Each structure stands twice: as C-alpha cells, then as structure tokens.
C-alpha cells in the first residue's frame, strides 16, 4: 500500500523501476522499498524510521542499506537519496502523477497534458535540454509542473531561444500552481509568469538568460502578478532586464533562499502587501532588493514588507534596463531601495560593497513629479532599518546619484529623499508638518552605523521649496524605532474549482436530421459531429439552424477571412446588453471559420480553410474548442494543443506573402476570451449594429436576430445604438475608427478583468480618453517592449508612443497583440499613428 493514493501514469516506455530481475526472472526487491510497492517514497522512509533501533532481518534486509545489521536513521536518510520522486513524493498526497518521456515532441505532449489535466495532477518532465517554440500555459487548479532539477547537467532545461508564439516561457492562471525542479532559459519575454492565482509556488527553479545582462532579455524571471499566497524559494535567476524575482500587485508573500544575480533588480516587491523576503543572496545586480509602490498599476498601497537575513552584496552591475522602465532609475550599486512604500522593516541583512548606497529611500517624486492620482500615496512612511551589517557601501555613487554626495559634501551610505514632506509646494502637500513619530524613517542600530544623508530632491532640483527639509547628514532624526512586523504565514490552499464536467462523447454520435443539438456538452473529436452545416466539408454557408453574422470592424488575424455563425437552441434567445456581450442561453454554439484567401485583390479568389473555432455555452460557462481542417478538407479535427500551418497569398499590392499561421491552443483562447471566465468577444451591440446582405435581402443584423427569434430586449430603434465604424472606412471619424480598432484588437485583454489589466491600460471603446487609455501613461512592465519610449501615447507624436512601437513590431516580448497574429498589420498601425498624430500635442514630461 502506498502512503499516497496516487495513480502513476507512465507515458514513457514502461519501466518497472520498482524491481530488478534475477537471472531466472524472479523480481528482486528494491533497496529501501520497505512496503514492496516498487517505488521508494515517503511511505518507505516512514516505515524505516518506525523500525529504527531494531535488528535487520539478515543481510538481505532492504531497510538496512548500510548493512550494519541495525535499522537506523542513517538508513532512512540514505534511502531519501533513492526515492523515485523529489522529496520522496511526500508533498502532494493524492495527486495523480503523469510522467512524460523524453522526445522531440515533448513540447506538444507537455502542453497537451497541461490542457487535459484534472485538478490534483503532477506533470513530471524528463531530464534533458529541450527547445520549445511556444509558451506553456496552464489554467487548471492544483497542478504541479515538475522537472528533474534546475541544473544544466542532469536537470530539466526548457530553452525558449527559438520561441515563436506566446509572450513568456510558462504562464499559469490556476490556483495552487507549483513549478519546481526545472530551468527556463532565454525566453524573449518573461520566464515564468503567474497571474490571478491564489496559491503560487516556485521552488528550485532556474530562470536564466544565458547571454548575461542585456537590455534585450526578457523583463522578469519569476513573475507572479495579482496573486495571493506566493512562495518563491531555493531558486536562481540571472539576466532579467527588469527584475529577477518580481512580485507585483500581490498579497501574502514569502521569497526566501533564492540566488539572484546579474539582473537589473535582484528582487522587487512592487505594489504588494504582507511580504517576507529573507535568506536570499542578491549580488551582481544593479540593485539588490527593491520595495516599490507605483501609481500606474491598478492595484496600489504597497505595505507591510519585511526584508531580513539577506546577503545584499556587490550589486554594481551597470543599469541595463531598456529606457522608459521604472527600474532604469535605480542607480547602479544600490543595496536596498524603497520607493513610496509604507511600513517596511529591514533587519539582519548583510549589505556590503554596493557602490552607491546601502539603502536608498525615496518618494515617487524621485522619478516623476507628475502624480495626479488622488488615491496614490507617493511618500514612503514608517521605514525601519535596524540591526543590519553594513560595510563598504556608497564609496563611488553611480551617475546622478553622485549628485547626492555633492550636495551633502560627501557620499552617503544611506540616503532619504524627503520629497513630499515638510513643504507646501504644488503637489507636495501630503505632510506639510513633517512625518509623525509613527510615520518616521528610522535607520538605527546597524553595524557599523553608516553615514546617513537626507534632503528633498524635488526641492533641490526645482530651485528650493519653502519649508522643504534642508540637506543634512545628521543621523539624529533617524534615531527612532517601530514595533516589529509579524511573520508572514501563508493561508491554507483554497479548494480547487470543480473538476471539468465529464465529456459525454456518446452525444457526438446521436443520429438525426439537421444539427446535433444534443452534442453541446461534449468535446466532440470532429467538427462534423455537431452537424452545424448542411455540408460537413463547407463551414462557410448553409448552417443548420445557425445565423451568419459579421462584425463592424474585425480582429486582425494575418489577413485571414472569417465566417461567423451563431447557433441558438430552438425556443431560446440571447438577452440584449447595451455595452457588454449578449447573454446567450445554454446550448449556444458560436462557430468562426478562418480561411486564407489566395488573392486579396479579388473577393472571389480561392480560399484555403484552415481552422474553425467553437465557443460553446454549457451549464458551467463557455468552452473554447479549436478544430483544424484536415488535408483533404473533408472535416476538422479537435486539436486542443493548437498548431501552425504554412500559408501564402497575394496581397492587395499583388505581392506574394507567406507566414506560419498560428492556431491557438485552448489555453490561448483564455488569453483573449477571459482568464477566469471565458466569454465571447464579438457579439456586442456596437459591433453587430450594421446592415448585412442575407439571402433574403439586406437587413440590420440586430433587427435580423430579433426577427429570427434569437435575441430579446433590443431597442426598437437601432439608430440609437452606438456603432463601431469599419476601421478602414475613411468616411467615418478618425477617432471612432481608431478606438474601434483598439476595442476589437486590444480591449479583450486591456480592460478591467482582462489578461492585460495588470498594466492599467484600458482600451475599451466607451472609456473617455485619458491616462488609462494611454495618454502620457508610463508603462508598468513593458521591459524591452517600451522600445526606449516613455509613454503609451504621446499626443501629437506617434513616433514617441509605445503603442505604435509595439503594434509595429513582430518581435516576441514586444509585439502587441501578443497572440492572434504572426505578421504586422501595417494598415492598422497607420490608423493608430494617424489618430495619435492628429491629437493636440501634449508635453507628457510637464508636471
């Protein structure tokens, strides 16, 4: 009986690793396998510890591994090294283990396993180095992705240097996700990203850009954002062009025992609450550990972080962050930097050899005076730095940081920027009477006591503010203390969401005339199983009970032509929504078929049918299923892992074009259709409100849907409903066309709750134009994607606008949208550029 009631599914060649065989063929018990179940695991270690002190049964006692005749804990510990699974398989009781064998198609099999996995599954990768071309994504709860170690020799290394799809190496959104014992190398974007999870563990993983520091490397190594209950331990990160370990907009965090080196920031806790950062070794970075709170992200109010027992040593790497990134302001040689964060305790650290500062505490005004968000607090308060060992810091301040030494007469190991305190100038009115005792900055009892300087940087840079705290190197104001913060304790894991409903494949075989209306609960293997079209090989017309529709302005997908049909169950109707997607009844199927037209100059040129995507409304929500058409185009086959297909066409200028068309996997579908709750994108009133040429004549689509009895609640007068103009219709208003294009191509991620909402950039059609739509908005986590530019949109200057730069790129980690296209849409880029250039110019740098 195994201690863990898990099922072992071995996809590799069957390996009866629990037994060796004698010459006569009888199985020989395996050393340490005390319970005889063929596996050495924690059950066996438990059994051996229970027998400690007893005599071995003889020379063949498999528990007496050292052969001294007595069962001892020496035997138990030696058997730990013989366990068949890391930690002796003790850490995930009840999980199903899926072991994947080595092979060229490991990427496909891994992604398939991640898609098909039920909650409580360990997916174990083999040792070796594997070159992956696409992002690994997982959305199921309680999944463990595990390798055989993070070292190059003997471990599991996933190298993404040749990546062509996806924005990061590994991307997980499910709760209680664990990644451990593997390495991720050379991703164009982030190494391992988690978003929106409750329960994140990254353990013994290595993320490395093997070329070392380079501004073209991905921004973040280990990157949980908008997460809760985060544990990052015993890991290594090297070469990130922003932060090696970056925890953003999250709560309840432990970052411990990691080795982070040669990144811009070693560890960064940003816009997060309740964090313990300890026993880490940060060296060779531009800055060792940063604790920031910034106005851009949608979640703010960073506070309650403890930084202790870390070794923060020789962080003197020149800053190699791409221009425009906030970490580009970190002086080379910074040990610890706190920006605009509150209630921080720093103790027991060894901080040495950092050329600019041991500690640097600044307000957000340090990087930008232009703070207009009333809910944002740009001033750091209640910072308590005590009992650290500090030596040889601040001896050669980097660049502008050297000015601090010039102002104060000598370089300072510790510096406090009092901007926003003790002044009544302009924006800086938060603390006109200074910080209170309970808000004080305390730097005390360090050994040796390093020099401490302070002044109001914004006052100095702006010619002096009345009431500003004058430059001083007197340590007395910092001689204070605060109560210690409590340790962070992670919350118990949340229960996984209900397992996916059973897949009743028998419904795919229900016979009958017309559409197979019974099949909607099943993921049928072939598109034809649903009988959506009169001719199974022609998904472009003659839908069985479906209504064809078109959108006012379409999503750009490599010039593919799209044929959309909605199938609403007979007798049921979708409910009209003025701004949101219509509410469709259970049993609805939306089918979208993508074709590549041979010659874009002629509407009637031949079409190659590539894929049909189904969105099916089931009792528990929408499901996305990608079907790829077979070579003879007789049917399409369900392919949850997606794929690529080489396609070619003649463009509008008569020139031949070709690309590897990317068919998304089911997890990619969630990137656009919703990370947590899948919903359709297109069927909104504003996108459907136009005339369409039906077989029965031309009619407004909304009127037609009402007439066909598939829509209820729509206004009688469709003229009162807003309508997005076709992006290429130059007779329409330029702003409306541009905002419509952004709405359809970008807002599915860049809207509240979308995958891109961590950026704070929202591009939905009805949002008034302002900073949240990109106007003078600095990026949050663009990395090299900013292209050295400072703002998403600089009114009047498309050349200075990150939005245009990213749309006009096809480089992974830069291009936007991240998925859905493999080539640039120059006409779309031009539209957005024209819109921005037509705006009244604004100086985004002005306060």
């Amino acid at each position, binding site marked *: 009986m195994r201690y863990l009631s898990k099922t072992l599914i071995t996809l590799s060649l069957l390996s009866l690793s629990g037994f060796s065989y004698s010459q006569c063929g009888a199985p020989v018990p395996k050393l340490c396998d005390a319970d005889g179940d063929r596996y050495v695991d924690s059950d066996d270690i438990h059994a051996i*510890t229970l027998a400690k002190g007893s005599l071995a049964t003889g020379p063949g006692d498999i528990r007496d591994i050292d052969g001294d005749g007595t069962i001892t804990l*020496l035997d*138990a510990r030696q*058997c*730990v090294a013989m366990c068949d699974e890391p930690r002796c398989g003790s*850490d995930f009781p009840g999980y199903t283990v899926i072991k994947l064998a080595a092979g060229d198609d490991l990427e496909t099999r891994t992604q398939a396993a991640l898609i098909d996995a039920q909650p409580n599954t360990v997916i174990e990768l083999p040792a070796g180095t594997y070159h992956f071309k696409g992002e690994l994504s997982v959305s199921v709860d309680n999944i463990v992705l595990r390798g055989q170690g993070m070292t190059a020799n003997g471990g599991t290394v996933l190298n993404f240097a040749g990546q062509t799809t996806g924005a990061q190496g590994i991307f997980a959104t499910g709760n209680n996700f664990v990644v451990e014992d593997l390495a991720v190398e050379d991703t164009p974007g982030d190494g391992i990203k988690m978003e929106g999870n409750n329960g994140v563990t990254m353990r013994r993983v290595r993320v490395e850009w093997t070329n070392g520091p380079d501004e073209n490397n991905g921004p973040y190594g280990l990157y949980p954002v908008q997460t809760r209950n985060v544990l990052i331990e*015993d890991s290594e990160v090297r070469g990130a062009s922003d932060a090696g370990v970056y925890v953003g907009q999250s709560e309840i965090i432990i970052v411990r025992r990691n080795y982070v080196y040669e990144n811009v920031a070693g560890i960064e806790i940003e816009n997060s609450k309740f964090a313990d950062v300890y026993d880490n070794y940060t060296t060779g970075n531009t800055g060792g550990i940063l604790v920031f709170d910034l106005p851009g992200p949608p979640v703010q109010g960073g506070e309650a972080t403890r930084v202790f027992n870390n070794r923060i040593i020789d962080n003197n790497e020149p800053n190699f962050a791409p221009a425009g990134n906030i970490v580009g302001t970190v002086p080379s040689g910074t040990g610890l930097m706190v920006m605009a964060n509150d209630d921080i305790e720093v103790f027991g650290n060894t901080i040495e050899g950092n050329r600019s500062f041991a500690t640097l505490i600044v307000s957000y005004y340090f990087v930008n005076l232009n703070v207009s968000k009333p809910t944002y607090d740009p001033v750091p308060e209640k910072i308590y730095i005590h009992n650290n060992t500090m030596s040889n810091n601040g001896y050669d301040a980097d660049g502008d940081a050297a000015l601090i030494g010039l102002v104060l007469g000598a370089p300072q190991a510790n510096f406090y920027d009092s901007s926003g305190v003790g002044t009544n100038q302009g924006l800086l009115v938060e603390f006109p009477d200074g910080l209170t005792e309970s808000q004080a900055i305390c730097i005390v009892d360090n050994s040796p006591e390093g020099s401490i300087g302070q002044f109001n940087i914004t006052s100095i840079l702006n010619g002096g503010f009345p009431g500003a705290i004058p430059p001083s190197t007197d340590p007395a104001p910092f001689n204070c203390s605060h109560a210690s913060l409590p340790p962070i304790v992670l919350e118990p894991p949340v229960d996984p969401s209900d397992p996916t409903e059973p897949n009743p494949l028998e419904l795919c075989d229900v016979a009958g005339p017309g559409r197979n209306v019974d099949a909607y609960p099943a993921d049928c293997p072939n598109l034809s199983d649903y009988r959506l079209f009169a001719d199974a090989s022609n998904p472009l017309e003659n839908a069985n009970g479906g209504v064809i529709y078109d959108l006012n302005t379409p999503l750009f997908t490599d010039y593919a032509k799209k044929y959309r049909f909605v199938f609403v169950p007979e007798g049921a109707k979708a409910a009209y929504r003025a701004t949101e997607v219509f509410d469709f009844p259970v049993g609805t199927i939306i089918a979208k078929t993508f074709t590549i037209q041979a010659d874009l100059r002629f509407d009637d040129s031949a079409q190659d049918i590539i894929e049909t995507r189904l969105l099916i409304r089931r009792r528990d929500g929408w499901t996305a299923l990608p079907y790829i058409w077979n070579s003879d185009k007789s049917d399409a086959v369900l392919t949850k892992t997606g794929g690529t297909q080489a396609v070619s066409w003649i463009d509008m200028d008569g020139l031949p074009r070709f690309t590897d068309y990317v068919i998304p996997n089911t997890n990619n579908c969630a990137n656009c259709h919703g990370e947590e709750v899948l919903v359709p994108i297109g069927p909104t009133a504003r996108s459907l409100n136009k005339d369409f040429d039906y077989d029965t004549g031309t009619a407004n689509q909304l009127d037609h849907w009402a007439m066909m009895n598939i829509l209820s609640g729509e206004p009688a007068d469709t003229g009162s409903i807003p309508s997005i103009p076709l992006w290429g219709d130059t007779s329409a208003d330029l702003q409306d066309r541009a905002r419509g294009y952004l709405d359809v191509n970008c807002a599915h991620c860049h809207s509240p709750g979308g995958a891109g909402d961590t950026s704070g950039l929202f591009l939905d059609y009805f949002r008034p134009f302002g900073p949240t739509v990109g106007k003078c908005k600095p990026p949050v986590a663009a990395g090299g994607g900013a292209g050295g530019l400072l703002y998403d949109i600089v009114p009047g200057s498309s050349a200075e606008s990150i939005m245009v730069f990213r749309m006009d790129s096809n480089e992974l980690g830069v291009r936007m949208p991240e998925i859905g296209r493999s080539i640039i849409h120059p006409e779309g880029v031009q539209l957005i550029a024209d819109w921005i250039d037509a705006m009244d110019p604004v100086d985004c740098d002005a306060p």
Partner: protein
Amino acid sequence: MPTLQTLKRLSAVILLACIAQAPVAQATMLSLQPGETLANTGDTVSLDLIVSGLGAFSPDSLGAFDISVAYDAAVLSFAGYSLENFLGNIGLSEAIDASGGASGGAVNVAEVSLLSAVGLNNLQPGEFVLASLSFNVLSLGVGAATELSIQQGALLADAAGSRLQFTDAGSATIVNRGSIPLPGTLLLLLGSLLSWRVSHRLTKSCS
C-alpha cells in the same frame, strides 16, 4: 639586497605563520542549553538541544538525528518537545518526525529530512536548535540540582546519510537556589524594617 635564500626562508616563515593562523575546521558539537537553569519545584523548564560546527549554508549539513536525553525521573517529568524547521518543515512534508518519546528517564527526539542535499545546504546555518524540550520540576529541594545529559548512542547523519562524528558539550543542570522574595514581599519586609527602626528611634527619644 636580500638573497634568494633569505627570501625563501622568509616565505617559509610566512607560510608557517599562515598555516598556524588558518582556521581549523570546526568540530560538530551537540549541547543542551542553557547549561544551568534555576527552578523551583512546580516550575516548568525548557532546554534547547543545539548542534553547532556544521557547514553554514554549505556542506556538512544535517540530514537526520536521533538523540536521547537522560534525566532523573524522580525529579523531572517530561512535558513535551518541539522540532525546529532546519531539516525541513514537517507540516509541509519536508521532514519526518521520528521521535520516540519519553520512557524510563530518557526522552528521544529524532527527525529525518526529505529535502535534497542542496536544499539542506541552503537551509542550515552553522549552528541551530534541533529541538526544544520541556520538563516539569516534580521535586527539587532548595540547594539541590539535577542533571540532564545526552545519552550514548546519539546519532547525527549528514545529507548523504553518513554518520557525523560529534563531541558532547556536557550535561545541563537545573538548580534550586532557594526562593527569591517577591517584590511585594520585599516591600513588606522593608516596610517592617523601616517602621521598626522609626519606632525604635521614637522609643529611644522618648525614653
């Protein structure tokens, strides 16, 4: 000008001096701390079982231990123990508590880590608490003392499961040095003395 031979001699002297000054590998040691604890009958005392001389975030690390501590059962009763997390967090299934409990005047504490050698190296400083032991003082007269000691046969294993040699720092002692007056009692006593002295003076002056 110094000759080559002189330089060689000088180098040899410097080398020997360096060798003499070089840190000697610290021996692994087990100890019970504090070495002396004051207690009265009815008190509960706590002792830490400490290992020192390990590699401090590098080999040697401790992979397992199995230690019994002897005590006088007529004087002390075992009240409980707790294991620290330096071999892994037992609650997270990183280690197994293999302790045998108390019997016959000895308490056994034992643990096996399930972490890898690298994991242990990252986790362990050179010196740390293995376990904390609590005892109730059953009967300890004023001026009396009782000793606790690590029994022979204690076992330390390194990360590979090989036996680690160690030295025993010696026994710990619990001593009853007699009751110390409580502050309230002390005040009463002082007050009594003062009033006695005042009354004595008054008596003298009146006489």
